[in-house]
């Protein structure tokens, strides 16, 4: 395949990706429960934010639940106790996640590889501990009954209105992630991931680029958490727990790390399994685990990654 054909192909792929996402998103609430669809969107955003870090910067964070969860709690608290407008509450959640991201990033980026992952995990456990201990978070109960409020005069209490609000935020964030990947900054990230010493020898302070990638990823994970608090109207310990950090790795790998749509597809798979198999109780974990092992063994590039590779071979 020539370079030009490759570029056209990648242009087409981006168009197809967008068309698919938009079309599926518009009809979704008529096909499935809006709350379920919102849950998928929130997790898809979370996984896409995570993929920006793992897939495009090569950094494996094992503490992303801290950003999702802390933003969910802060947004919930701001909306419930201070009665702030929905966008302001969400902004507060994202701001907290961003600050946490900066803190995590500065500390964890002093190490690389498995040590980096372990530091993010350790810091996330500290956040979990704080959430359990602080009185306003509701302990085991979490925050329940978070009000959705109104947006531009539209009552978000209506599930369809809330869904399309969630969807709009998701699309905006999804667009920003794509933009980031293809930006001058994204080019440097790719260069660092592929050959870090070479990037240094070209004069790049690679740590600063990694830190910015980490903070962007944390902010967007926080946005997913804020959205979750408003859309599903609760924030619980499950959102800050380490299992959540593991789940996002799973979603990303299932769908295809380093692909545009992969994380969203992975989120759809995992949330669907958890939702529709919930009658089976703890067997869900066994099934999810088995599916994960089989998928990783059979399709190392993830679902979307394998489909992409198939098309690349054909043409």
């Amino acid at each position: 395949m020539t370079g030009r054909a490759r570029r056209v192909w990648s242009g087409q792929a981006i168009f197809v990706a967008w068309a698919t996402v938009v079309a599926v998103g518009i009809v979704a609430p008529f096909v499935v429960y809006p709350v379920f669809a919102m849950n998928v969107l929130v997790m898809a955003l979370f996984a896409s934010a995570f993929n920006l870090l793992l897939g495009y910067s090569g950094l494996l964070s094992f503490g992303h639940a801290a950003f999702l969860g802390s933003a969910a709690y802060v947004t919930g608290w701001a909306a419930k106790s201070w009665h702030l407008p929905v966008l302001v509450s969400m902004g507060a959640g994202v701001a907290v996640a961003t600050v946490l991201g900066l803190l995590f990033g500065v500390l964890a980026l002093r190490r690389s590889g498995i040590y980096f992952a372990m530091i993010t995990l350790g810091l996330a456990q500290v956040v979990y501990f704080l959430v359990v201990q602080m009185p306003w978070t509701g302990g085991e109960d979490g925050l329940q009954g978070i009000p959705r409020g109104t947006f531009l005069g539209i009552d978000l209490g209506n599930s369809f209105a809330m869904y399309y609000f969630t969807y709009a935020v998701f699309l905006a964030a999804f667009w920003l992630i794509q933009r980031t990947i293809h930006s001058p900054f994204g080019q440097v990230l790719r260069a660092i991931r592929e050959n870090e010493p070479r990037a240094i020898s070209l004069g790049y302070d690679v740590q600063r680029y990694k830190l910015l990638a980490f903070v962007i990823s944390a902010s967007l994970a926080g946005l997913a958490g804020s959205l979750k608090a408003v859309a599903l109207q609760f924030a619980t310990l499950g959102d800050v727990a380490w299992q959540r950090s593991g789940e996002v790795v799973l979603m990303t790998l299932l769908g295809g790390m380093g692909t545009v749509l992969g994380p969203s597809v992975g989120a759809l798979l995992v949330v669907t399994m958890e939702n529709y198999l919930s009658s089976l109780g703890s067997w869900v974990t066994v099934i999810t685990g088995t599916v994960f092992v089989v998928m990783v063994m059979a399709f190392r590039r993830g679902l979307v990654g394998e489909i992409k590779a198939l098309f690349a071979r054909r043409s």
Partner: protein
Amino acid sequence: MPDDLILETRDVVKEFRGFVAVAGVSLKVKRGSIHGLIGPNGAGKTTMFNLLTRFLPATRGSILHRGEDVTRLPAAQVARRGVVRSFQISAVFPSLTALENVRIALQRPLGTSFRFWAPARSLSVLDDRARALLGDVDLAALADVPAGELPYGRKRALELATTLALEPEVLLLDEPTAGMGHEDVGRVAELIKRVAKGRTVLMVEHNLSVVADLCDTITVLARGAVLAEGSYAQVSSDPAVREAYIGSAA
């Protein structure tokens, strides 16, 4: 005259947990020269490179660039001062096209490298320069090929084009002809000769005919210390050098 020295080390030492890789080397690289660094395996040549470009911290001693102490600067900053290195294994960004590889080097001075919101096409202003640089190393026709798919010799040429995009004052080439076939060696040697005009080159090289052909000054290292220094004729007739080479071959 010290002004003539662009790069200098003073009694630089590098120890790894008790093993002394570089044992007090004082190197003087003159501005505008092609300086060769040769020696048997394990002589400390690549370690010297890593010290000079700050990829490794020196245990003792100092490193000067244009007479200023750079011993404690971060590696990226040394690169921004114009002391740019290549690597023993060809260092390209494999999934990026040849053009994008060169553009990575060109885009930093643009000052937009932290702009994650800027569109991809904001980099296309660099395309003409990148193509010209690729043309200089005969890669113009392969501009849109991912670097990972280029043959080895072409990768090295691409690496050189990327390095030259920074317009470095000092080029440090770590075995530029390593692993190459006969024709590629000749082409790369020609290329080095061409790009060395108006620059200073310090190169580690095993191919002695390349060294003889290109280098004005040669420093021979053995067991982390300077064994001899001078022109190729001087160095090659030095009995200590002959012994070190034959000794290592045995």
